[in-house]
């Protein structure tokens, strides 16, 4: 059998919960984990006679995301009803947007591990209301919890521009970072704030001919891991299925599959794309939204520097590694804090080390962001400068940072109190060096004889000095004295 070559093609639908004060079309608070059906009102219950009122904040949040995704923003947008019967959908129609979504034709610049980025085109982003949840307890019945019904949901649809599970994972991650930056969603996967539906197929080259496998839509994935794994699984399954049956894409053979998290397999849900007729029509209970120039400007003014731009700036302006820049820009607050510390005089790489190696760890332990550690940017800049000037060692800076968080005191005071200032007094250090040289004749000999052993012996001697000074000697100065004495 000849060698198979294939290209993976994935487009993604992403649903993001917006963290507005109230639901999309009524005054109920958003809910998570509350008692079933406790955050509901006649409107989100779909009682007879109720009418929806658009949540302006949700609309503005959605426009903000669309702007960040470089979309064209519609000046005139309307609402449509999407009809289907399901117990978790109280009105048996969902208020959504059909032919005039609030935005189209955007793109997202997605960082790749290689350090490069890739542009994924966005077809559209529109607003809709979420449904409730069906609860299948034991027994001959199901129950419905409508707390979630009416939660504002932003649906983002990409072009099939991704070519591996890793790329899809990266896009999802980037999107999470963006909505968090904009402050429009907590994007907490555990709370179901983001749900993914990838459309996957392959272009297989066999014997010089190309074959497209039927498209599979995997429904309702709610973790990055499930997203990545399900696509990986689909790739393998589709290759196998093609080899067995030779089935290729044609009208109407798109299928829908679910993800079994336990078995890590996709499971067939709907064989053929049944002629699903949602009977869309304009929602007569809502008026169209006309986005005036001034309103759009107001929303634009709330845009911030986007994560990938910031990440690239940290690399080019501060010479940070791609990885470090990624860590610092994962959350908006961290990157902003980093910027402030650098502005206050901190050497960028030192500040980066302090934040990535100490600050984030402390913040993580406390369950807060680095800005909430109680350390002022100026104080951290000072600590970075102390390291830079060899006043304290890198090791000592960790202790000092921790103490700053604990006590709120300045780095210099802490360094003094804990006796962590490095000994840079050449005269005093010289005495200690002489003492060490006297005690370690063999090593001294090794250094002097040169060759392989020399380097090792030198570090050994340096280590001995450091030990004697309890780590407070300035290693640079000690090295200088050692070299002088031994040459």
């Amino acid at each position, binding site marked *: 059998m000849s060698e198979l070559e294939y290209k993976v093609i994935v487009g993604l639908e992403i649903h993001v919960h917006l963290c507005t004060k109230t639901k999309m079309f009524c005054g109920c608070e958003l809910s998570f984990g509350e008692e079933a059906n406790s955050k509901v009102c006649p409107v989100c219950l779909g009682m*007879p*006679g*109720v009418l929806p009122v658009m949540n302006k904040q949700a609309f503005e949040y959605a426009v903000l995301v669309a702007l960040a995704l470089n979309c064209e923003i519609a000046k005139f947008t309307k609402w449509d009803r999407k*009809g289907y019967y399901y*117990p978790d959908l109280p009105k048996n129609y969902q208020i959504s947007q059909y032919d005039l979504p609030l935005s189209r034709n955007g793109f997202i610049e997605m960082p790749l591990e290689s350090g490069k980025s890739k542009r994924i085109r966005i077809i559209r982003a529109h607003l809709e209301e979420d449904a409730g949840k069906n609860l299948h307890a034991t027994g001959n019945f199901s129950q*419905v919890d409508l707390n979630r019904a009416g939660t504002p949901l932003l649906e983002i649809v990409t072009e099939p521009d991704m070519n591996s599970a890793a790329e899809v994972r990266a896009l999802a991650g980037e999107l999470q970072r963006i909505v968090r930056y904009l402050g429009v969603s907590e994007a907490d996967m555990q709370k179901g704030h983001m749900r993914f539906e990838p459309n996957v197929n392959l272009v297989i080259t066999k014997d010089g001919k190309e074959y497209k496998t039927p498209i599979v839509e995997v429904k309702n994935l709610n973790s990055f891991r499930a997203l990545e794994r399900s696509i990986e699984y689909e790739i393998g399954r589709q290759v196998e299925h093609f080899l067995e049956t030779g089935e290729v894409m044609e009208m109407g053979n798109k299928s829908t599959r679910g993800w079994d998290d336990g078995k890590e397999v996709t499971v067939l849900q709907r064989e053929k794309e049944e002629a699903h*007729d949602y*009977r*869309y*029509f304009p929602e007569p209970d809502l008026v169209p939204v006309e986005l005036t120039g001034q309103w759009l400007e107001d929303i634009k003014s709330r845009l911030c520097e986007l994560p990938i731009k910031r990440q690239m700036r940290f690399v080019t302006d501060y010479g940070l590694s791609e990885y470090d820049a990624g860590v610092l820009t994962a959350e908006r607050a961290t990157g902003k804090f980093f910027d402030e510390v650098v502005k206050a005089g901190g050497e960028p790489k030192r500040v980066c080390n302090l934040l990535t190696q100490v600050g984030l760890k402390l913040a993580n332990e406390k369950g807060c962001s680095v800005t909430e550690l109680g350390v002022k940017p100026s104080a951290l800049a000072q600590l970075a400068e102390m390291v830079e000037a060899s006043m304290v060692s890198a090791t000592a800076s960790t202790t000092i940072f921790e103490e700053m968080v604990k006590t709120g005191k300045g780095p210099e005071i802490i360094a003094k109190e804990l006796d962590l200032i490095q000994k840079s007094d050449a005269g005093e250090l010289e005495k200690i060096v002489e003492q060490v040289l006297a005690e370690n004749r063999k090593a001294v000999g090794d250094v002097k004889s040169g060759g392989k052993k020399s380097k090792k012996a030198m570090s050994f001697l340096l280590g001995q000095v450091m030990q004697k000074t309890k780590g407070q000697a300035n290693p640079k100065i000690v090295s200088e004295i050692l070299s002088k004495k031994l040459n």
Partner: protein
Amino acid sequence: MDWLSAKELRDKIRNGQSSSVEATNAVFEHIAKIEPTIGAYISTFEKSALDKAKEVDNRISKGGPVGELAGVPVAIKDNMCTTFGATTCASKILENFYSPYNAMVVDKLLAADAVIVGKTNLDEFAMGSSTENSGLKQTVNPWDTSRVPGGSSGGSAAAVAARLCFAALGSDTGGSIRQPASLCGVVGLKPTYGRISRFGLVAYGSSLDQIGPITRTVGDCALMMNVIASYDPADSTSVDEGTAPVPDYLEKLNEPIRKLKIAIVPEFVAGADKQVQEALSAALDIYKGLGAEIIEIEMAHLDYAIAAYYVIATAEASSNLARYDGVHYGYRTKDPKDYIEVYSKSRAEGFGKEVKRRIMLGTYALSSGYYDAYYLKALKVRNLIRGDFTKAFERCDCILMPVSPTTAFKIGEKVDDPLTMYLSDIYTIAVNLAGIPGISIPCGFDGENLPIGLQILSPAFSEDRLLRIARMFEKETDWHRKRPAIINQ
């Protein structure tokens, strides 16, 4: 007592010449006597009505402030949500539905100190022109109990005509206030779309539905409008007062409109019964006598109104009524096999024939592949009809036409012929498509002593002028003072 208009009663209650308890008791005594024959009400609230009446009387005796409808017994069509009694829409599927909230208009009535007598019968979900489609009971025409009261607000119109209340609320999607008002010899106003909050009105055709008053006099209509007309932020389609301020409808009611210019559409009128046409031309003579100028106009697209209406209204209805599925509230079938059967059987058993017919029609019109040919085209027709009216009102103050091509027909006469029944809405439907206001006022009787209504249409948000035009006619005639014989039983 039952000679009084709502406004006269209100004034007498306010100044102590009468009392709300007296009026309310009189209404309930009357109900006890003739309601079993008329069948106007689905539910009545004697106890809470009397409690409210006592409370209002009490406040008046203490010199406290009272509302615009102080102590006046009124009725509500049973497709408006109330926290008291059921809200059935005359449907088995909602027979035992108790709303957790009040419709905005109900809150307005209560705040105006109205005494709520009961909730009136209708064609199921307001779909019909005779109230024969009620899933719960039959209402008859007080002028001839073998005939229909019209519909869908047949219960409200019959209740007002038979003096079972002093005023009532109806809803009008394609003529459901004006046509029963005409057939029962009372006044019915369909206000401009957006003038009155639809919040709590159980939707039939959302882009067409509008609540309005059914009363004995034009003045009572104005009084009711003063109570219920307002912007409501809970209804996104209600129009704010910056765009269209709500006037005091009573203030200039008795001032005639000078140099009134009335238009008629001769070709269009020709389709009505001879006696209806005669009543219309007699009405025109009265206006001429008052100095009005009559012009003839053409409206090119009116012929398509019924077709467009039955696509748009049923399409919206098919979606609006999707929620009645036996899952969350309302009727649920016994022993369903699976959840699909909860839907299919609950709906099959809960809805009546006409409702199912319209759901099917609307579902078809919205189906993929048919949407453009039906729904989209109907919307285009709707725009053309709107344009026709806009153009017409550049040349006149109002348009006069019949309300219904016939007077009240016999019960059962048209039930098996839905198309003929649909065609009887010919004069009322275009108004809903255009969103403009229209009023029906009594303008005569046919040879069988059945009332005939005169319809007057005016531009959007000109209800104040429309009421004044209607009042000009009412002052010159006494049709509104005629009473059906059954009242004296």
